[in-house]
């Protein structure tokens, strides 16, 4: 397929915009951009929820250290992703101004930066908090960098489905930082983010299909077409809505969570149905944009409800 051959052509090393002899123009803000702060905010929030809803006690400062390590680990993954994907980023409108394709940071600098942060985040989490949580964080970084970025992203339209597991691990790491193990509750939190990822990213890819095609990234709309993508979005949202209710059904969350998860699940389903139904013209783009925007709200709302519910129950404010 032509797409794959274009992708293979992109495998050549990115020619740095700066000569090696030329001093770096990178500012501190460029290194912060390598950490993908917007992605990090979701990671930190879901990890915080995992940490706070876990049974048991953790000293607030040690909990802060755990969150900091999870955030830095996520940032390290982002930096290593930008190092490896610099060739793709350079041809995509959305990413061509990132520090490496823009020539402000050398690929080798990003590699060293990401590797250092990855080693430190895992090491500090292990030494100061818990080695099982540290092992989970190390696996998350490994999965995002090696399985998703280096392997799946350029080879299969299922890239974000399987790769979504990396984004689903933070609440599990947060939970493990407190308990030192995994039980059903963190698995359900993992499942919610795992099933949420495909509708979220495929809604975006419907809007950015040309960008992905030009970069040779086999996203589902590029390889299978728009209609197949709309069908898959609807299927995954049909799985996500009941999965969102699972913590309530399993008795892990209470009434507040159940109501929020039900309402948000129904809105997600409605918006996914609109994406499936509106296939042409401006209404198709609007439907995809609305689903993408609400999907961000969905994951924040569901995890916030989980946190509120857990805190209410902990302080005896729920029946």
């Amino acid at each position, binding site marked *: 397929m032509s797409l794959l051959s274009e992708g293979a052509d992109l495998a050549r090393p990115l020619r740095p915009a700066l000569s090696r*002899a*030329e*001093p*770096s*123009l*990178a*500012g*501190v803000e460029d*290194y912060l951009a390598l950490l993908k702060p917007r992605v990090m905010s979701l990671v930190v929030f879901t990890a915080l929820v995992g940490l706070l809803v876990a049974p048991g006690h953790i*000293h607030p*400062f*040690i909990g802060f*250290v755990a969150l*900091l390590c999870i955030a830095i680990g996520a940032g390290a993954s982002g930096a290593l992703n930008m190092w490896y994907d610099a060739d793709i980023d350079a041809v995509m409108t959305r990413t061509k101004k990132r520090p490496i394709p823009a020539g402000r940071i050398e690929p080798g600098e990003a590699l060293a930066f990401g590797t250092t942060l990855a080693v*430190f985040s895992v090491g*500090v989490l292990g030494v*100061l908090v818990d*080695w099982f949580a540290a092992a989970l964080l190390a696996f998350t970084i490994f999965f995002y960098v090696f399985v998703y970025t280096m392997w799946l992203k350029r080879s299969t339209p299922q890239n974000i489905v399987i790769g979504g597991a990396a984004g689903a691990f933070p609440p599990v790491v947060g939970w493990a930082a407190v308990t030192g193990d995994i039980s059903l509750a963190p698995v359900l939190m993992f499942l919610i983010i795992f099933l949420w990822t495909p509708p979220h990213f495929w809604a975006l890819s419907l809007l950015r299909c040309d960008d992905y095609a030009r970069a040779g990234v086999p996203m589902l709309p590029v390889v299978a077409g728009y209609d197949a993508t709309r069908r898959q979005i609807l299927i995954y949202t049909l799985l996500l809505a009941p999965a969102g209710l699972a913590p309530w059904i399993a008795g892990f969350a209470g009434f507040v969570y159940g109501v929020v998860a039900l309402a948000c699940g129904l809105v997600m389903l409605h918006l996914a149905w609109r994406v499936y139904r509106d296939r042409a013209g401006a209404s198709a783009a609007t439907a995809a944009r609305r689903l993408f925007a609400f999907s961000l709200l969905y994951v924040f709302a569901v995890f916030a409800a989980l946190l509120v519910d857990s805190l209410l129950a902990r302080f005896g404010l729920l029946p």
Partner: protein
Amino acid sequence: MSDSNDDEIVLTEEQIRRRRARSIAIALSLGVLVILFYIATLVKGPAVLIRPL
């Protein structure tokens, strides 16, 4: 003996400013790490020596 001035790199004001900002950021990061370990040692107390694997 040849003049080595041709090999010297002269930094622009902007490059000097950014290098200073990077250096300060690295120094602050190391300082935070030291404080982090110091407080964690106080918080954990004798438990900091326990290393079950």
